[in-house]
């Protein structure tokens, strides 16, 4: 980078003032920078970076979170993690959900977006129907889904009984179906956003590409394979990374569906909250969150690297 003073000042010759606006004294420039960036740095540093670093520090202690002094336990928390059955359970559940979410929010929403892209009638209405749940609070969605999945009075079972499929009625939020029910809820509430991103990208594809494909006699499938799919690569990267982060951090959705989640519906995100806020085991909770963060960071970096390479640029 060229340093500030070495940059030739445009208009220096014409400027009669002693203090060139492009060349204020260094101290003044620094002061202006501080005023511009100061509030952001202060807030971000104080309430995001500092607590993150503190959190990493606490992961080596047995701190309860409230009152008494934390004691250093070295890698004790991380060693405990390996033998913690509940952690394994939460980890497996989170991985299961993340895999489903990653697949669906990368490919399922892409198919939907392609279907919604070139509608000839009722375009706004149809899109609105699919997008609307995204602007609802997850608490709204969660409450409605609690009611839908209810065994006795829930809408799903009522419909099944109504059409004579009595035996299909299930305890949808019970252990057997919990994972799928949670996935259905996540899809319902967040699908609109991922679909919209694909749609926005689809609209940037120049018409000439479609015309060329039509001239070559390409059907919808080969248009998708050879025109739309390659052009969607940047959004595939964005969406799949966001889906990954979304899945690993799954937390609020579990709270609104189960209120007091059972052991079999613990996600890592909920487990951390449970340990830290309710369980008085802050040191251990931050150790769990640190491990989760590292896993997420590694996977995300690998994912971005692999996907970026496949993006096409016009």
């Amino acid at each position, binding site marked *: 980078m060229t340093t500030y003073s070495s940059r030739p000042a445009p208009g220096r010759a014409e400027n009669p003032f002693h203090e060139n*606006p492009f060349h204020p004294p260094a101290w003044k420039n620094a002061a202006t920078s501080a005023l511009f960036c100061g509030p952001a740095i202060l807030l971000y540093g104080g309430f995001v970076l500092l607590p993150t670093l503190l959190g990493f520090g606490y992961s080596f202690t047995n701190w309860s979170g409230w009152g008494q002094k934390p004691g250093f336990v070295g890698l004790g928390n991380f060693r405990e993690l390996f033998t913690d059955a509940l952690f394994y359970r939460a980890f497996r559940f989170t991985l299961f959900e993340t895999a489903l979410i990653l697949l669906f929010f990368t490919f399922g929403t892409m198919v939907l977006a392609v279907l919604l892209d070139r509608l000839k009638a009722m375009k706004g209405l149809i899109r609105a129907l*699919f997008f609307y749940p995204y602007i609802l609070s997850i608490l*709204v969605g969660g409450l409605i889904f609690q009611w839908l999945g209810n065994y006795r009075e829930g809408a799903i079972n009522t419909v099944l009984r109504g059409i004579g499929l009595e035996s299909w009625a299930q305890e949808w939020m019970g252990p057997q179906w919990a994972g799928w029910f949670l996935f259905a809820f996540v899809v319902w509430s967040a699908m609109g956003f991922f679909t919209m991103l694909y749609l926005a990208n689809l609209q940037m594809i120049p018409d000439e590409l479609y015309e060329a494909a039509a001239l070559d006699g390409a059907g919808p499938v080969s248009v998708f394979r050879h025109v739309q799919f390659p052009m969607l690569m940047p959004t595939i990267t964005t969406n799949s990374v966001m889906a990954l982060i979304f899945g690993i951090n799954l937390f609020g959705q579990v709270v609104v569906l189960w209120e007091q989640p059972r052991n079999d519906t613990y996600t890592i995100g909920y487990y951390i909250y449970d340990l830290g806020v309710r369980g008085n085991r802050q040191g251990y909770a931050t150790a769990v969150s640190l491990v989760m963060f590292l896993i997420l960071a590694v996977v995300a970096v690998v994912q971005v690297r692999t996907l970026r390479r496949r993006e096409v640029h016009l």
Partner: protein
Amino acid sequence: MSLGHRKRRAFPLKEILLLAAGILFLSPVFLAVLNSFKTLAEINAAPLALPSRPTLASYGGIFTRVHILKPMLNSLLMALAVIVCLITIAPMAAYSMSRRKMRTGPCLRVLFLSGLMIPFQVLMVPLMQEFRFLGIQFSYLSLLLVYVSTGLPFAIFVYTGFLTTVPKELEEAAAIDGCGQFGTFWRIIFPLLAPCTVTVIIFWGIWIWNDFLMAFIFMGPSRGQLAFVQLWTFLSDKYVKNWDTIFAGVVVLSLPLTVLYLTMQRRLVKGLTAGAIK
């Protein structure tokens, strides 16, 4: 295109199928609205039927028993406060880091961007600790600080991306006319960033109005003062779910954003997607 001509006359099968799928997809919402006009007994007896005698009793309950009006106002004020903070602080920082000759600029930018990756759970409890140390635990101020600080990375990311499209000549012209750096920013650059500002307003307006988790965690014992937390607290006290009140509450609290969505759908979707796609 001759192909297109032929297709236009064809029966819009795809559209009709998608419309049906969309209505089915949204049917939980329709059912919730439908049931908000029934009594609890009727909801349990016939969840899918039209209300035999439509009643507004459950809507009365949401205002008299849950006292939702004041929390709704609080949520609105909170959203406004956070948005005002974000749309002043974030564009200033983004502008300074990317456009003014700041030697630490690129470095700071990476630091801010890394904030997009930090999972909230990592900083949740240390943050509560920090607020206790500062003596502002369980207050509106603490919640405001959480919303603004965790919102900054994305807001700065959006503004930085957009700033690359603003021509540099404008600033130079302003400087030659004797406009100071702050004047240049607020009078020339900030108005040009309006599309970004709209994105930020939409994003955080929706997010803060709808949020109940952060408010739930950070407002602690004095919870029950933002709209969705109030509803949540009322519900989780009870063993038996009062579905009539729940549905009425759900409808009332979703109404403001729904009206906004219906009146400016195009703008809203554009604003929401603009952040993630350049």
